[in-house]
């Protein structure tokens, strides 16, 4: 008899479990995709610098130190919002390289003249080829590279000060310690 009562409870328990799963999934942002490039080397590239079109940049310029590679563009409004935080980080000694993604060169240069330049090197990826190799699906995105040039973390969206404090700073510090 007791066994039978339990069997009748099974659908109810399944329903509760499913509700739980769905309820917790509500809080998840479906737009955040896991990066396929985690733990893999930064892709090889050969692209001009934003400020000096004749100067070619390659992966060698990004390796040797722990760096952030920030994907940005002037058409990206969120990048403008993120800009002061990047400026602050670069003042704190964080090395940030820019990947100017599918942008117009004069507009990008003017943007940096107006808002300041937090980047050490800026890769000018007009066609978006490097972006595609990285799996960029929207700006801003920030990639954390270790000393060997491996992608160790990707942050999609604006680096808000609290996100940096609560999460990203620890990731960055851990990479420095390696």
């Amino acid at each position, binding site marked *: 008899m007791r066994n039978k009562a339990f069997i009748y409870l099974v659908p109810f328990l399944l329903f509760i479990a499913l509700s739980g799963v769905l309820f917790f999934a509500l809080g998840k942002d479906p737009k955040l995709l896991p*990066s*396929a*490039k985690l733990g893999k080397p930064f892709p090889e590239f050969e692209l001009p610098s934003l400020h000096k079109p004749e100067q070619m940049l390659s992966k060698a310029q990004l390796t040797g130190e722990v760096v952030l590679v920030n994907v940005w563009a002037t058409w990206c409004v969120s990048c403008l919002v993120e800009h002061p935080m990047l400026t602050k980080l670069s003042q704190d000694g964080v090395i940030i390289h820019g990947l100017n993604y599918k942008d117009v060169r004069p507009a990008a240069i003017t943007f940096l003249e107006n808002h300041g330049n937090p980047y050490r090197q800026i890769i000018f990826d007009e066609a978006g080829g490097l972006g*595609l190799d*990285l*799996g960029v*699906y929207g700006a801003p995105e920030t990639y954390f590279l270790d000393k060997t040039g491996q992608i160790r973390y990707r942050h999609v969206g604006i680096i808000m000060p609290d996100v940096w404090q609560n999460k990203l700073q620890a990731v960055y510090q851990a990479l420095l310690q390696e």
Partner: protein
Amino acid sequence: MDKGINRVWKGSRRAINMAYGILFWGFLAIILLLQPAFAGIDIYQFDNVKEEQRFRDLIAELRCPKCQNQNLADSNAGLAKDLKDRTYQLVKEGKTNKEIKNYLVDRYGDFIIYKPPFRLSTWLLWIGPLLVLLLVFGVFIRKNLKTPKNQAMDISLAEQQRLKNLLDSRESGNSETSRHIDA
């Protein structure tokens, strides 16, 4: 006087009819002229039908990472266009469908293909429906096979003895026992 009005009326009707005619043929001409414009939205050129079909199949099966739940073929997002261009380029280079998919999964992860691969994290997705079906089947068979058996077994020893007695007495034609049962 009346005839004059009639003639004017007829004349204006002819003019109206003509205007409608011009409108009709004009619209038809515009629609026909627009047709090549619709067809001209994508500018991909192919050497043969097979190659084109391969491209169309791929962009229908690949998912746009920027847009939620749209394939590359349906999406007009900038990123979808870039990915279509790259897919086209790879098709032209003679890469196989598998190579092209691997190329994109390498960069954008499993999200980009609508058909998830079979691996450790996705086995439940693939096997799940089969498991549920087997479970339902199992329960169904169990219920149908075991129910009569269970009822037959659900008799205590005393009852079995009584049943035996009854059967025996019936064979010997003892009416008193049978009356006893009825009571």
